[in-house]
């Protein structure tokens, strides 16, 4: 396993086949999205050859809710990510650096949360949010995502790994608690913020269960819920090509972001792995 060596021919073939399996579904989806619905209705094999059309994409811009869902997803995912980064950084700093009563027990209390799956709380939470009139609202979609015990654990570990000498230097430099946190330590946690941010964003972007039962009005649908409804409605909708165009359109932003920031995202993922 010399990392500098080239792949053996057999391995190269295997990896190439694997890559083809990864890409083929995406290409197929794109092909379908470029075909007229009536042609696909008769035989989807028509997607293998022209004529291709952008009609389905035009239709999205004219009369589809996908753009609206996309905006909702962005608001929810960015809101969740920002919230998680803020809350977990604050809490991580607090647990790592400050001394207050019950600190250890509270930290263990938070760690217990790592073992609680969403399933155990989603039904009662649905009732809870009903009492609070939070369903079909952005806070209703964002708040559950903010409870990220893993994020607190992760940030706490990261803050702990920063030498205390830096805090002391800053204190001697006359920095207040907040200056110390904001100007000295927080900038040093940027790699951790990136990792946690990528995870949170993807998690929120791809969340399905909660928005399915909380965002029940199409004005508040996220992409996942909206496309699920479009998918289940497929028999009664404007056709396969249009459906696939919606899928492509909805995936484009995140795929583009992924392609542009691939290095950073991969590094961020690896950052979580090393822990």
């Amino acid at each position, binding site marked *: 396993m010399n990392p500098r060596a080239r792949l053996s021919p057999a391995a190269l073939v295997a990896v190439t086949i694997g890559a083809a399996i990864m890409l083929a579904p995406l290409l197929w989806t794109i092909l379908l999205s470029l075909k007229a619905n009536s042609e696909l209705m008769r035989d989807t094999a028509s997607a293998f050859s022209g004529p291709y059309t952008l009609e389905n994409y035009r239709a999205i811009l004219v009369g589809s809710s996908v753009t609206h869902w996309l*905006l909702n997803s962005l608001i929810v995912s960015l809101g969740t*990510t920002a919230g998680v980064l803020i809350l977990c950084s604050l809490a991580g700093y607090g647990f790592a650096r400050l001394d207050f009563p019950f600190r250890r027990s509270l930290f263990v209390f938070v760690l217990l949360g790592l073992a609680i799956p969403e399933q155990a709380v989603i039904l009662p939470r*649905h009732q809870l949010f009903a009492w609070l009139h939070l*369903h079909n609202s952005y806070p209703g979609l964002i708040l559950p995502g903010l409870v990220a015990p893993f994020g607190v654990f992760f940030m706490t570990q990261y803050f702990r790994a920063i030498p205390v000498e830096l805090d002391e230097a800053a204190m001697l430099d006359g920095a207040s608690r907040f200056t110390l946190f904001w100007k000295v330590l927080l900038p040093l946690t940027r790699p951790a913020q990136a990792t946690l941010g990528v995870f949170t964003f993807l998690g929120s972007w791809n969340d399905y269960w909660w928005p399915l039962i909380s965002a*029940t*009005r199409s004005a508040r649908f996220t992409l996942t819920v909206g496309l699920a409804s479009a998918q289940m*409605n497929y028999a009664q909708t404007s056709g396969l090509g249009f459906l696939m165009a919606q899928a492509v359109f909805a995936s484009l932003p995140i795929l583009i972001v992924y392609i542009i920031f691939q290095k950073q995202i991969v590094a961020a993922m690896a950052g979580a792995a090393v822990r």
Partner: protein
Amino acid sequence: MKRLRGLVAGLVLAALAGGCGTGPKKTEITLQRFFGECGAVYGHSIDVGAAEGECGIVTTLINRFQAENPDIQVDVNVVAWPGYPQLTAQIAAGDPPDLVTMHQSVISDYQGRGLLEPMDGVLGEAGIGPEAITPAGLRGVTKAGHLYGMAWDTIGGLFHVNTRLFAQAGLIKDGKPILPTSADELLVQARQFKTRTGKPYLVQSEVSDAASFVRNFYGYVMAQGGVLFADRRHSRFATPEGARVVQLFRTIEQEKLTTLNQDTPAAIASFMNGEGGIYPTGTWMIGAFDQEAKTTGRPLSGAYAVFPYPHLWGRDAAFVDGHAWVMPKRVRTAAERAAVVRFLKFMAAHNFDWTRTGHLPAFRAVYASPEFRALPHRSDIAPLAAIGVQLPGYVQRQSAIQGLLGEELTSAVTGTKPVERALRDGERRVDELLDQIP
């Protein structure tokens, strides 16, 4: 990080602005419907007459209502069929829509739990009296002596027939397809059909579509005089009548006299492409198939006919249901209520447009109108209204029951379970569910 914060703030502002953008004096009502999402085609159209299919017609109808009532802001919430889990979640969240499309068979679920508004009042204000509604429609929406919905149509299973293939199979007499008169005959004709055309007799959607098996089962058990629900807590599926029906479909499946493994879109495409003789599905496909038959150069061109389910046992009977507009219980202002009244009035007045989907009208006046009679195939399916049977009104959770029973019927038909056991399992599961109803 800074850029991210800016972006978030911008988006939140944009969202707030979007939410507050509507004028201050508009009354806002939320409608929730299934029938599909076709904004891409009909997003801005108000030309109801030009629209085709359930989705197109309902979309243009609502667009038109919106255009004619600029003081009302109609928020349309399109849910995936049938949308009940979502409605349930909304009601549980205390945030149900103002008006919802609901199958008449499902009304008692929600009505029985006190989740629906009785609509005698609003319907009265809309000028819709019980006398205006068909008997089937009235039966569907009347619960405990009150109207709990505005009936909108009557729907039922039909045999959609490809006459060209029937001719090829030698199953045409006097220009009309020969339909079986007993279960045995059905099998004989189906085998003949398969031998002559090389294609399956039936096109069926069997995947993710428990409803169609359940419709067939209910209809033919009731035709034999069988009782499906002894009382509100007990189902009766494992009966000789039930077994007979399921066995027939099992045999069809076993002998591959039907298309296999198709979901609804696949089955529709299959029938349109002339890959099978009969597609037993609902009234809602008449419009689309008729359109296809009128287009030249298609497998179905000039080769489409439609009939009620044939008489196989006992008496003529078909399981029918209907759609209705219902009002979930919630606080409404007088203005909202008035908007609802206007919407119902509009929908009632346009009931004819809706029947172009293939559904039978819910209003007597439409039945009698010459324009309805002029619609294609309507005389062929007219008997449906007469022979239609529904489940007793005391049966609650019909949507859930349909899911449970559908699973068992699918198992029996596809052969993963013996017929007897599937029916017994269905009975047990449904009874368990019924037992949980408070």
